[in-house]
């Protein structure tokens, strides 16, 4: 079993849960060996979603959103709420039979406390040795790559741990000089500075330029970037964050992000905030690049307006009742006047912080002060479809990857301090 603090256990369980998107959770290995981790991971996803909402009037609607956006199976929903109820994260749960109708939200304000209590719940679930080892390895690799043979896993569990870890994308493998190296996409996500430092040490100009380009334009849509293929490969390799959104034509657009400038807590224990911020960033970039003839000129201006108390932005005439990604993520709500509708921020602290972080990311590479046309972004924000977190972007990116192994190897070697440059 790993010697992890409870908050780290729940954080990694949440990571693994997100990584299992598009993976058959009923496969024998995952279903039997990952039950506690999946349950706590789902509880973490739901807790982060409901945090700050106070009252969930329609739990059945949340169940639909949880299935669509949080990968919480509809059959697991009641069990997840039951676990949250045991931990006092929800109260006054009203049920009709087994069906949950409504409840009060009482998730701790502090993410450390939230994940800490969920970590204790993980222990209470009687986790298997494999999932204990898996969480330990994922956490260890989030601090830096390691030779596969050096990972502290009991021999009997090694094969299963690595299989589940790679299946969930939480463990990436690379062969360097005949040695298998394991690394975690969360390393680059949680330690962007280390990647930057490593890039400075290796002789792969195009990688360095690609990273620099993303810093100049956070949320670069891969399909329109001249470095799109390379960025796709970096996302696939798990060394760059690539949240994604479904486009109106049903294809998936990945947005490259290098989340520099945030404190270590935002990159780890407060990651739900960053994930909300990346969702906002992806949405405005979608509006900026795929808004048609009325594309958004200034995402920053729109988001600044959204932060003003009670301000309604992104008016649109034809999508009054259409539910969009940010609404499903609990970030905005709809407002209507006549035939037009717009969005308002659901104004609690986490949402305000997330929009502020999105603005910080946008501002990192841009100086934007003009008032933009909101129609394009409105379409993007209101577009139906699914948002996917950065770890969930790895699998689709892998399907298109062309990156030469030696370039990636150089990067990993530099990170590990084995570089030859």
């Amino acid at each position: 079993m790993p010697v992890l603090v409870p908050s780290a256990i729940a954080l990694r369980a949440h990571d693994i849960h997100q990584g299992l998107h598009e993976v058959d959770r009923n496969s024998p290995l995952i279903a039997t060996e990952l039950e506690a981790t999946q349950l706590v991971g789902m509880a973490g996803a739901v807790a982060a979603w409901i945090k700050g909402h106070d009252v969930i009037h329609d739990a059945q609607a949340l169940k639909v959103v949880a299935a669509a956006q949080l990968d919480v199976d509809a059959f697991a929903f009641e069990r997840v709420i039951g676990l949250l109820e045991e931990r006092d994260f929800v109260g006054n749960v009203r049920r009709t039979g087994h069906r949950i109708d409504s409840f009060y939200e009482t998730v701790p304000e502090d993410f450390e406390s939230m994940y800490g209590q969920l970590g204790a719940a993980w222990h209470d679930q009687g986790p298997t040795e494999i999932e204990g080892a898996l969480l330990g390895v994922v956490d260890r690799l989030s601090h830096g790559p390691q030779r596969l043979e050096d990972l502290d896993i009991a021999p009997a569990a090694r094969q299963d741990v690595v299989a589940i870890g790679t299946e969930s994308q939480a463990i990436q493998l690379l062969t360097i000089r005949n040695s298998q190296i394991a690394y975690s996409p969360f390393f680059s996500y949680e330690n962007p500075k280390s990647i930057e430092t490593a890039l400075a040490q290796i002789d792969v100009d195009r990688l360095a330029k690609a990273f620099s380009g993303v810093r100049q334009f956070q949320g670069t849509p891969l399909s329109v970037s001249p470095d799109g293929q390379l960025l796709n490969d970096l996302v696939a390799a798990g060394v760059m964050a690539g949240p994604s959104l479904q486009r109106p034509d049903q294809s998936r657009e990945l947005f490259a992000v290098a989340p520099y400038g945030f404190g270590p807590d935002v990159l780890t224990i407060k990651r739900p905030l960053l994930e909300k911020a990346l969702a906002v960033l992806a949405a405005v970039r979608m509006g900026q690049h795929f808004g048609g003839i009325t594309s958004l000129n200034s995402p920053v201006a729109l988001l600044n307006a959204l932060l003003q108390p009670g301000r309604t932005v992104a008016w649109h005439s034809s999508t009054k009742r259409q539910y969009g990604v940010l609404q499903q993520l609990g970030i905005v709500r709809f407002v209507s006047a006549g035939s037009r509708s717009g969005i308002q921020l659901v104004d609690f602290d986490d949402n305000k912080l997330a929009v502020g972080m999105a603005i910080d990311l946008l501002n990192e590479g841009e100086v934007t002060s003009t008032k933009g046309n909101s129609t394009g972004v409105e379409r993007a924000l209101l577009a139906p479809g699914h948002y996917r977190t950065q770890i969930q972007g790895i699998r689709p990116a892998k399907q298109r990857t062309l990156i030469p192994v030696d370039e990636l190897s150089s990067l990993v070697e530099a990170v590990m301090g084995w570089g030859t440059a």
Partner: protein
Amino acid sequence: MTQRDMDQKLQMRRAFWLMGASTRLEVKLGSLIPREDRRADRQEWTDLDVLAIHYAPVSGVTQLVADCKTSRTRVAERIFWLRGVMDLTGARQGFLVRDFPLPAAARQLAFRLGVSALDREDREALLRDLREDDPVVLGLLNGPAVSRWGSLLSATPAELDRLHRYRTTGYWLAPRHRNLTALPAAVTAARDMLDSSQPWSLPLVVDLAWLYLFALVIALDDIGRIRLADPRIGLSQVVVGDERERREKDAIAAQLRSLFEAMPKRQQVPAVDVVPPYYEDLSDLVIRLWRRRSLAIDALRTLELATVAAANSVAVPSFVVTDFVEHSLGVKLASDVVRFIIRTCRLDRSLQGRFDDLTFEAGRNPFDSATADDSTMTSSEPKQGQIDLFSVEGRQEAGGR
């Protein structure tokens, strides 16, 4: 006190309720005195017949007081007295309430001192203007219901006398910020005697929650003055004090820790900190309240109704119809305060369920059942008759019915 005095107090309570405030009857003011053998350690200055409280973020805590008497004598003295009580408590308005027509000179004096003088005719006009036929007022803030509440709370075992002394006098004697920690301490000390199966248990706990929420809204005022942008810093100063006080307490805590270490080892050495062990929960509660502080008065009014409702075994009705969803958040905030007290003082958790059952109708969305079968957040258009409760107009539509 005569029954007619009580009728006046209840009339003023209803008037204050209808004006949007929350009220408490018979509040004792006084101070602690040096403890001597066989003598009480506190003395009363006076008592207030009716204290009304309102809170709004723009104006902070507003207090109003009413003096209700049926006697015809000493009107001028009572007006001077009322002015003094207003100054002492920081009340913004004072009401002198009498049954008989007030002399013109008394009205002049009241006007000069900023006191509102109400004889029977004025009072009836006030209540008429405020629509005293409000169902909440008729159903719960009436004489029999309030008497039943009073009888229940006075029927508690003698072991709870100390807690009652805190409720009725100690709370009002303490510097206001001290009640954030004094109330949990008083309840925890009485925990073993708080038998949740007794009919007085829930009314008592809800009444304590009302007192705690009142202490919290006063803290909100202070927090806003100390550090508007970071309520956690404000709360820390409210609970611990300024930097000088914190350093003093840190030094005392360090000395205590040294003392404990020097003592022979025991099984349990108490943790020594400048904040109480439930501070994280308190911080959570304050942040929630701060975020929704415009609804704090709704929460206070919910608790006021709930304690009477619990004593009379009836549900709390909804009392706001303009924005139902917002109001339900106020009911939920009241539940948060009850939950905090139950968790912090480790009371029987069934009390929480009973409180939530009691206030369920007050906080329930009446359209839940109509939309539950077919409402989903992913459907692109609402079905006929379905209300989009995630949109502002949906909320208004629901609240307006």
